[in-house]
């Protein structure tokens, strides 16, 4: 008979000194976990079965046995025609949902004719009005597959999509998908690219958008609460999960304060996380997050419908983990990250192209990224068993430890007055900045190996790797010409009327701003015009950066 004491003695003979290592969240990791590390909470209460409270093992009873996660690759480049071409290719390859990444100028809330032309379409698709969206989605069955619009407040891209649906005769009740990048707190803190309107103005528009979607586009997820930005900015996995849940608390409490029913809005809340290469830590992060959110929804927000307690999330493999050195190694990194996300029970997954350290992914890298998901599911059979790491002494213990770390961070933010106040004071930004610097110092000191960067280097010429070409200037010039044409061809009187109504709505507390955004999009108001008037009325989005 072997005993724990005997193993401990033998291990100590082989490994001298403290055997504890630390994960990115600062949790001490032992060399072995045994039944002694199991929590005393009964199985049904701590873990339960997939699809039932507290959802530690997954939010649906069938998980991937019933349906695969959605393979949702981010796409966006050039002009609407380019987007349409790439989206059709990706759908042919087996992607089951689509995601639209607009050009940075669109992210910043401007039309193409308001910005330096050199930057147009280099990082996403230029979409400025309803006609652009019609072209981008031409031949795409929008009533049948889910569409994610990466577009923050005031959500003009969704407004354009709804206008296109109306013209095609597709009822809004058939439109499904997600307003990615709707979480203004994460933009204020960590990814300022999407931060268009002043924080409190954006806060109001989000609540209006949720109310509108719940009523008119019930299959749409109006809110995606984002941990990805914060983790990419340097937050540890535990911090990223905690801060994201804190943002979720604020949005839910705002909806409650607006008199909305938690069992109507909560089932349409979704989350979006980074999946780093810290494999077990990521699995535990997601399992813990599911359990905490379920408890918050039931106990703190008073939701009664089990659908309200489900923690639905999209995962994106972490770009920060990828290296420019020996870039093909990134395929292996993305594979490990994707596995962590799958074992973590995600609902939708974006795998990064290995060449994202050079440029927007080339077509070949995008194909490999999709294939990676297919290989993991259909060749490696990762999906045969639901929550296959559940019950591992290590994974369960780590899930518990991540949970207590996350819960204590949530308590700290609650203490600071909630997430809005904490970010306005810079508390969260400072913590994330410190974590980012601490990680970089570990890498520089060689305490965290990064293959090809601080270990196992080889001589190489990275100039050999292809990068995605930028859209050519004449194509962009032609686009600008079409934009000018569009602005001439629409009824400018109608646009003016709609913009005036939008401005009035922004200054009328009980009015729904997003309803007026949709109305303006339908008559041909452009993205820049809609964002411009709201910037004027609700304030320009200056992020708070702390160094």
């Amino acid at each position, binding site marked *: 008979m072997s005993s724990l004491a005997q193993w401990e003695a033998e291990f100590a003979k082989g490994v001298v000194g403290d055997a504890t290592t630390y994960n990115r969240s600062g949790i001490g990791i032992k060399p072995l976990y045994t039944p002694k590390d199991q929590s005393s909470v009964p199985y049904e209460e701590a873990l339960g079965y997939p699809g039932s409270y507290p959802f530690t093992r997954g939010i649906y009873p069938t998980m991937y046995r019933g349906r695969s996660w959605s393979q949702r690759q981010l796409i966006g480049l050039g002009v609407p025609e380019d987007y349409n071409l790439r989206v059709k290719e990706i759908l042919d390859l087996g992607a089951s949902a689509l995601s639209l990444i607009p050009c*940075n*100028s669109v*992210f*910043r809330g401007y039309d193409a004719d308001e*910005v*330096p032309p*050199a*930057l147009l379409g*280099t*990082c996403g698709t230029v979409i400025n009005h309803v006609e652009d969206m019609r072209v981008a989605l031409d031949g795409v069955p929008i009533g049948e597959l889910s569409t994610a619009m990466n577009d923050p407040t005031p959500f003009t891209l969704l407004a354009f999509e709804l206008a296109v649906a109306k013209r095609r005769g597709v009822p809004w009740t058939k439109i499904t998908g997600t307003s990615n990048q709707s979480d203004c707190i994460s*933009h204020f803190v*960590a*990814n*300022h*690219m*999407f*931060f268009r309107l002043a924080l409190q103005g954006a806060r109001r528009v989000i609540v209006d958008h949720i109310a509108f979607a719940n009523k008119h586009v019930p299959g749409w997820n109006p809110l995606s609460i984002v941990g990805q930005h914060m983790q*990419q*900015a*340097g937050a540890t996995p535990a911090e990223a999960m905690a801060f994201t849940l804190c943002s979720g608390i604020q949005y839910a409490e705002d909806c409650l304060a607006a008199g909305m029913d938690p069992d109507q809005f909560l089932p349409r809340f979704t989350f979006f996380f980074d999946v780093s290469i810290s494999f077990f830590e990521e699995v535990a992060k997601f399992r813990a997050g599911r359990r905490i959110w379920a408890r918050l929804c039931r106990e703190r927000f008073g939701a009664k419908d089990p659908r309200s307690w489900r923690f639905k999330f999209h995962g994106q493999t972490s770009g*920060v983990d*990828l*290296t*420019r*050195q020996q870039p093909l190694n990134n395929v292996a990194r993305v594979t490990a990250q994707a596995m962590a996300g799958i074992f973590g029970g995600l609902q939708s997954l974006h795998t990064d192209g290995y060449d*994202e*350290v*050079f*440029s927007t992914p080339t077509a070949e890298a995008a194909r490999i990224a999709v294939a990676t998901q297919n290989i993991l599911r259909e060749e490696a059979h990762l999906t045969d068993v639901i929550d296959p790491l559940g019950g591992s002494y290590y994974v369960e213990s780590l899930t518990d430890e991540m949970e207590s770390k996350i819960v204590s961070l949530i308590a700290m933010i609650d203490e600071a007055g909630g997430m809005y106040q904490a970010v306005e004071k810079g508390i969260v930004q400072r913590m994330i*900045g410190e974590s*980012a*610097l601490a990680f*970089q*110092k570990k890498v*520089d000191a060689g305490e965290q190996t*990064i293959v*090809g*960067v*601080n270990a196992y280097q080889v001589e190489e010429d*990275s*100039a050999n*790797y292809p*990068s*995605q070409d*930028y859209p050519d200037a004449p194509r962009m010039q032609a686009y600008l010409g079409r934009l000018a044409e569009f602005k001439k061809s629409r009824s400018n009187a109608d646009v003016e009327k709609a913009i005036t109504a939008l401005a009035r709505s922004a200054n009328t507390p009980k009015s729904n701003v997003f309803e007026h955004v949709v109305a303006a999009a339908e008559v041909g108001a452009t993205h820049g015009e809609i964002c411009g008037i709201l910037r004027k009325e609700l304030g320009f989005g*200056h*992020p708070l*950066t*702390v*160094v």
Partner: protein
Amino acid sequence: MTERPPKVIVTKIGFDGHDRGSRVIAACLRDAGMEVIYTPPWQEISAVVKLTVEEDADVIGISSLATDHLIVPQLLAELRAAGLSDVQVIVGGIVPAKDEAMLLQSGVARVFHPGSSLDDVVESVRALSEKRRALMGEST
């Protein structure tokens, strides 16, 4: 005379808002004893030029994660027009190889890619600051 520490502006022009890199670099240069002027993203090129004049900065570090490096040559042109051709400009972030060549040709002193070590950045900024002081005829 006492040595004046290098003075560096760490900033972002264009649209991108990913600021992990610029914040880490700013903190690390400051820890290395340099005087760092950090700005939030989306600075107008003219604002960066104005800041450079006002602060008498030696080095400008531009962080670019989403193609904003494409307008760095415009920044260099405006610096030259303002009589600041001695100021050293470095770029860090996601820069495709073909663009790196273009940037170096347009007068950028150095391009840092993901995986660059903080020590390398610190040493390079120190050397470039000395170079700029030498160009100015100032002994350091």
